[in-house]
């Protein structure tokens, strides 16, 4: 089957806007080059607010790259070039006068491997609020820390040892600590790059519950290798293959009647 990708994209975009709510973030014809590697080719993608969008696709296809376009973390690498347009609430984040630091406060990120700072649990959470001056007083700060840990479902496990090092927690707890750390900055969007790939099934289950719960307050984009996880947590799924957007639509449709042959193959585990 040979489908013109731009046509498919148009349909996807229409499907989103048909619901009447303008998308939270929009990527239009985004191209990313890492030196000579053309990692993303003309990707256009709408992210709806207060939904979980899953990015799936074979390894090396560019899922992380898509994710990093939304907080401009791709720029951390040498010789990266990004073209096209990415907007959040209609504001072009690659515009000249954009403050990257302020952008990253609006768009938080959780990484594949838990990466708590080698500081106390309290300081890990308080790090962002301190930098952004979110708390006037010590009480405010303590409140933010408690609220973030509550939200990340970690409060009961750590409330008696906030002074302990964040690195002393279990992997699953560390990942929830990182989520709490991201929440503490009060972002609008949370990007998650395979947040469960280093975790056991029980810890994974907890994080998935947490994601489900967080959807009420945040827009979430999650990269995952697990089809089941995408099916469980997301409302929309984007299938990326070889740097291109293969298919994008509501998760249910994607998993029950994929439109493209390649998507189907990948979902059935025949490719990737």
């Amino acid at each position: 089957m040979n489908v013109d990708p731009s046509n498919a994209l148009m349909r996807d975009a229409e499907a989103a806007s048909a619901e009447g709510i303008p998308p939270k973030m929009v990527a239009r014809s985004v191209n990313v080059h890492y030196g000579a590697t053309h990692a993303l080719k003309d990707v256009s993608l709408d992210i709806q607010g207060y939904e979980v969008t899953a990015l799936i696709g074979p390894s090396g296809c560019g899922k992380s790259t898509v994710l990093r376009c939304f907080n401009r973390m791709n720029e951390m690498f040498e010789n990266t070039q990004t073209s096209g347009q990415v907007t959040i609430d209609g504001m072009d984040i690659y515009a000249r006068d954009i403050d990257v630091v302020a952008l990253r406060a609006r768009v938080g990120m959780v990484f594949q491997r838990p990466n708590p700072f080698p500081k106390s649990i309290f300081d890990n959470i308080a790090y962002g609020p301190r930098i952004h001056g979110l708390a006037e007083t010590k009480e405010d700060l303590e409140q933010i820390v408690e609220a973030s840990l509550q939200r990340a479902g970690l409060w009961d496990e750590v409330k008696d040892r906030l002074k302990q090092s964040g690195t002393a927690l279990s992997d699953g707890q560390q990942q929830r600590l990182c989520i709490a750390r991201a929440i503490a900055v009060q972002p609008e969007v949370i990007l998650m790059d395979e947040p469960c790939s280093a975790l056991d099934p029980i810890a994974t289950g907890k994080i998935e519950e947490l994601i489900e719960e967080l959807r009420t307050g945040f827009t979430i984009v999650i990269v995952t290798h697990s089809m089941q996880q995408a099916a469980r947590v997301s409302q929309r799924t984007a299938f990326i293959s070889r740097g291109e957007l293969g298919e994008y639509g509501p998760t249910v449709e994607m998993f029950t009647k994929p439109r493209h042959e390649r998507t189907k193959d990948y979902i059935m585990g025949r490719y990737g």
Partner: protein
Amino acid sequence: MTPSHLLSLGVIISACFFLFARFRIRAATLQEQAPSTSLPRFYGWYAAVLAFVPIFLGVCIWVFASTTIVEILLVNRLDSLFASLPEGGRDRFLAEMYSFLDGQPLRTPSPDIAAAANMLIGLRTPVVTTIIALSTVGALSLGFLALRFIEPRFNAHAHIDRTVVFLLLLCSILAIIATLGIILSLLFETVRCFEFVSICQLFSTDWLPRAGNQTALDGDAGKYGVLALFSGTFLISFVAISIALPIGLLVAVYLSQYASHSTRRISKPMLELLAGIPTVVYGFFAIVLVGPFLQRIGGFLGLDVAPQSAMAAGAVMAIMIIPYVSSLCDDALSAVPSALRNGSLALGSTTAETVLNVLLPAALPGISSAVLLAVSRTIGETMIVLMAAGLAANLTLNPLASVTTVTVQIVQSVTGDVEFDSVKTLSAFMLGMLLFVTTLMMNVFAFSLRRRGISHGEV
């Protein structure tokens, strides 16, 4: 024939055995219709190495021991002559004979000496011939023995492997032995020094060593208080580190976090160029430029700056160690997992905030170890302080005064007319030992910090 000829002969013999052995194993595999355990070249190496061992031993004996062997033989022959000489006469006789042989006789040689010299020359030839003959015979017989061993089931590869491991071990043992030798010789001379100088005497501030001939006049061996020397050393180190650490650290932060790839590629080697400048040039720089400059500044401010000051020496030494400090700090910063850095940046902190709040704390063990290693370098540095700091042993904390250091006094004690058993010379070994212990402790501490930093970084 010289030792190098013997060595070449050994190489030729080994090469022949290499070819023989390779030929033999090929023939044997054909004959027995069985594949050999190892590749043919390993059998070749096996025979070659075995044949080379006796030659190598022979060369070693020739180079290191033949003079001693010949001398022992000579002394045996001249036993009756030496019996008639007074105590110590034998050593003097031999010394005179050797200088006669070198063509620089101390005075017109007595007939005894000339005869002994002739006898020595006569003894050399049979000794050398024996060495050559024994090692060649040994090489041939070991080589043929190796050829007898060679058959397809023989695992030559394993033997070669074991030989290589043995050689590697030998080399590292040699390095350790050399270090131990240096430490032991320091230790022995230090112990001898303490026969003349009591340990309590060290804890005073007067450093006035006196040469043997001066001591002979009035029996005064001098004063050996090391406090002022060590205070001078540490004062200069302190000055150097307090200048080099901030600069080196900032350079490291800039290079590792801010500089673009191309800037880094250009400026890092340039910085490391500083490390290649001979320290005597730095010393010269200190005398000609920095010293007078500091004096002029001091003049403006109404401060009394000595022409040779701890400040001048420390400042120049700081320039010398900046590349060292910055490269060690760079390593420490780069060892911090990039996940931490990205985590911080993704929370919306600037690079500066990331460096200050995340990278520096995580790199602290590495940075402390960099400081300690740099300090031990400044402590051991000699040329710059010799030229720029002065010779007067002053116990002072004033960096503008002239001070002297342990290393400078070591140089003072062992240059010029030296008798190797005067207290003054021995005191140099004693200072060397103290210095060695000080820097050793610092380095050990620094390395343990570094290791802790690295294991920390892997979390």
